[in-house]
């Protein structure tokens, strides 16, 4: 299977700071569902940012769809859900408008939406079960519904790689289970490659093919079932 994400001997340090990542080797194949876990400050979000080309590694190589990650040209294949704290849900935006914004990269900044684009938007909204709320303001939805609206935005362009950074932070158990079901369907039905960063998995854990534990470097990479019992809580500081 072709590699979607590849990190070779990667190290990273923020300017003037100590190394956050070192000796990282990771290869994610098309169609895999990979969870990246680890304690807060362990470097999992930094690893994701390096993999997506948002940060340049201080050592080693990061490839995205086989190209240097910082200069990758096939970015419109990526659906990305950033950490909730970074999203501007205070804006007076409806669910439909938010999801439509996910199509800008694929169709180009100057293009006007086509009938096919509008169908894609409605399809993405239906997939996260928000059709009844499509015309409502995102700011008036519950936390779990807001999260699903942003997932729909990431899905609108029908990505080959779906990247989610802490999608379960700050949402209730029902919303986590709903997200788990959705990710399971996407992975099973559409073959989407999923890269999920979280320090708590809950309902998602049974669905993932691989669990990657990061604490400065990768300390475990394998099936969740192979995780040593003493490491079962991937967020625990002793990882």
């Amino acid at each position, binding site marked *: 299977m072709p590699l979607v994400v590849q990190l070779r001997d990667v190290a990273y340090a923020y300017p003037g700071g100590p190394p956050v990542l070192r000796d990282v080797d990771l290869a994610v194949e098309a169609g895999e569902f990979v969870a990246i876990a680890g304690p807060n400050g362990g470097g999992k979000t930094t690893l994701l940012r390096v993999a*997506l080309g*948002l940060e340049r590694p201080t050592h080693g190589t990061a490839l995205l769809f086989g190209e240097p990650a910082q200069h990758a*040209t*096939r*970015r*419109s294949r*990526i*659906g*990305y*859900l*950033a950490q909730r704290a*970074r*999203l*501007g849900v205070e*804006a*007076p*935006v*409806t669910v439909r*408008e*938010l999801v*439509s*914004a*996910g199509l*800008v*990269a*694929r169709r180009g*900044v*100057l293009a006007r*939406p086509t009938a096919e684009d509008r169908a894609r938007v409605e399809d993405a909204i239906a997939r996260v079960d928000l059709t009844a709320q499509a*015309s409502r*303001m995102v700011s008036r939805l519950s936390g779990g519904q807001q999260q699903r609206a*942003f997932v729909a*935005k*990431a899905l609108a*362009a029908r*990505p080959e790689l779906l*990247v989610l950074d802490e999608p379960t932070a700050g949402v209730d158990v029902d919303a986590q289970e709903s997200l788990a079901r959705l990710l399971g369907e996407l992975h099973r039905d559409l073959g989407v490659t999923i890269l999920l960063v979280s320090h708590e998995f809950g309902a998602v854990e049974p669905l993932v093919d691989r669990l990657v534990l990061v604490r400065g470097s990768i300390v475990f990479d394998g099936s969740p079932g192979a995780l040593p019992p003493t490491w079962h809580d991937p967020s625990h500081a002793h990882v």
Partner: protein
Amino acid sequence: MFDSEFMRLAFAAGAIVGLLAPAVGFFLVQRRLSLIGDGIGHIAFAGVALGYLIGVSPVLTALIASVAGAVLIEVLRARRPEAADQALALVFYTGIAAGVVLVSSAGALDANLFAFLFGSILTVTHGDLALVAVLGAAGLALVAVLYRAFAAVALDEESARVSGVPVGLLNVLLAGLAGVTIAVSMRVVGILLIAALMVLPVTAASRVAWSLRSALLLAMAIGDGSVCLGLTLSYYGDLAPGGAIVLVAAGAFALAAVGSSAFARARTG
């Protein structure tokens, strides 16, 4: 009121600025850059002073300085997003300091300078109106063409960057557009108040809007309404036009805030 040519020119220039300023400010407010207009305004002040010093049209030098300052703020912000407020402060204070030095060198601390600081819409000439019309129409056309892209960046900049939207280019374009807006709006409300016309109609509209598109259109309507009502009040009440326009916009915000709160209370109970 419209028997006087100066009022016809004032309303024509004001109507364009009343549409343009909130249209550009809309995306800045969504990106939490509401105060960037103040920073660019201070650079525009330095540009006006430079114009006086070298004997070139102050509007032209202010236009160049505003666009350059706006792009500089954006470049500094992009390099260190966590220190964006420092970038704004750096440009803000450097601009005002340069303006003071250049004004004193040019010996231009006079009524003409105050016209740029506080606005002088009643002295707009046909030439001023032509400049405002051309740049205003170009700015509004750019906003219309790039509306979806600007919105995508304003809503979720990092996600847009990851998926390949040219975020850096769009941000520089928006900053340049803000610079142009400040420069063409100087005569209407003045350097010290132009940022208000970019922000207050947007915050008012956001309180009562039902979608992003409606918020943008409402903001432009409130901006235009504030200019027209403010000019009318200034004509009949012998008030300073710039201040009157901004106070009307502030009143619109107060009305929208009270109205939306009352509506929310009525809905819940």
